[in-house]
């Protein structure tokens, strides 16, 4: 089972990092990220440094800004990049070949893990470029490295329910576009309904726990390792979504 997962993950990484289409995506990501890094992270940090005299070092500000931007950017990226985990293969019939060699569970979880790995690589790339920007700005320290590692680890947990949501939708709908579209709809409608409900019934506020990203506003007020105190939320959400996706994958006709 593990060796089959390894083989599927290797092919998915090859699809993203060694195929023509994958490289186009990566280039688009790099371009977009460099834009965000310059204007939303670095310039913002410089402005803050100029406004607040005697504040903490650049590293603190830089990675606080980095995390604020990445916390929204990577989940959004998931909705597009992770939208095609099994949908196209099912519609094309490629899953009919694959299921003769390994179980649907293996395919489902291997594709999920592939997407998680791809996003982790992109997160590492973004953190590294931020670190290099910091170095260019004249502040390179072990504190900066420690900040970047904490930010990366948090982002790695934060994006999991978004990838799991796309795994569920990809197992359900026909195309990646549909999956992205439904993700947007589900996310906004669920948030809207829960806000409305909790306005009349405060106890309904607990339903927010089911919406990926509901902890973002709380996260921005936390620093350093304190941010891990909320890690249980995305982990529980991911586990629930993966259980649902696995069941859909098992029951669907190919």
């Amino acid at each position: 089972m593990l060796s089959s997962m390894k083989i599927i993950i290797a092919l998915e990484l090859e699809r993203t990092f060694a195929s023509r289409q994958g490289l186009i995506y990566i280039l688009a990501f790099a371009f977009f990220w460099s834009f965000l890094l310059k204007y939303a992270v670095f310039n913002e940090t410089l402005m803050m440094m100029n406004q607040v005299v005697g504040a903490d070092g650049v590293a603190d500000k830089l990675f606080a800004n980095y995390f604020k931007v990445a916390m929204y950017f990577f989940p959004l990226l998931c909705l597009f990049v992770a939208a095609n985990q099994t949908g196209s293969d099912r519609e094309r019939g490629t899953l009919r070949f694959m299921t003769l060699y390994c179980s649907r569970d293996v395919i489902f979880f291997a594709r999920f893990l592939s997407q998680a790995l791809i996003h982790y690589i992109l997160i590492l790339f973004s953190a590294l470029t931020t670190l290099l920007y910091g170095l260019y700005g004249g502040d390179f320290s072990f504190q900066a490295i420690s900040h970047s590692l904490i930010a990366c680890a948090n982002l790695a947990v934060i994006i999991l329910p978004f990838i799991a949501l796309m795994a569920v939708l990809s197992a359900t709908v026909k195309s990646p576009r549909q999956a992205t579209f439904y993700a947007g709809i589900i996310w906004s409608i669920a948030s809207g309904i829960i806000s409305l409900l909790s306005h009349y019934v405060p106890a309904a506020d607990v339903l927010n726990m089911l919406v990926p990203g509901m902890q973002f506003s709380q996260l921005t007020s936390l620093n350093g390792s304190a941010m891990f105190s909320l890690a249980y939320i995305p982990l529980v959400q991911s586990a629930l979504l993966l259980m649902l996706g696995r069941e859909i994958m098992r029951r669907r006709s190919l």
Partner: protein
Amino acid sequence: MSHLIECENLSKNYGFKRALDQVSFTCQAGEPIALVGPNGAGKTTLFSILCNYFNASSGKVRILGHEPGAKQLYGQIAALPQDALLDPAFPILRQLIFYAELKGFSRPQARMEALRVLELMDLSASAKQLPTELSHGMRKRAAIAQALLGSPKLVLLDEPTAGLDPSNAKNIRQQISKLAGDTTFLISSHNIQELERLCDTVLHLEQGQLKQTLQHKSALRMESEDSFLTIHMESVARQSFIEHISHMSSVTSVSGDQKNEFVICYDARLTPDLDQKLLQALASKNWHYRRLIKGRTLEDRLFT
């Protein structure tokens, strides 16, 4: 010993439509098995249940003693599913290496195995091409190459030669004949002549029901004791031919549904060598024949 395939009262409903209706049969490993029937008879549905693409509504299926989808069957069953396409993002060689690795081959072995099956399907020159760069026939051959990876015990081929040129269709028939024995093929096709050449056991589905199961080649041997000759003539006056042959001793009837092809029914106990007498009769009338078959064709046996 367990059967290769064992189906018991297998039914499948799509909403209110019953695609398979209480189908029961068993198949042993060995000679290729044919699955015939008109469009909508339930052939692809049966294939899909055997491959675990979906579940039956009721009934039981066992392949090599296991339920479809059991982990013991991974790598033991291969298939050419109808209308399924390989991944357009990777060259066919890369995809075959991927499937061979999933089957348990190491990377170097998987590469060799992939090249071997591509060679079998005469696709070596196209190994590095993407599926989208190949013609329909080549894509189909690549998918058949996938089904031949390793040595599966059972290969299910849904319309393997449909859309192929005659030369490649012949090559596929040759490969099936060569591999039959170690691997059992279950072939669904509308090409009855092709199935007649390849298969002994024939499962005939119609409107979701198993109409008959024939042991075609063995039945031909038995049938020749009592009864039929099928002759394909070069141009001949139909009525004149029927009248002339009908008057030969022991011939009970001559029928000809298709142009220049006649089925002669006779009493083999009275004239066991009617085939030789028939050839003499043709020579005396200066009529030329193309093909003489002892017994009836599979098509006649199934549909007459």
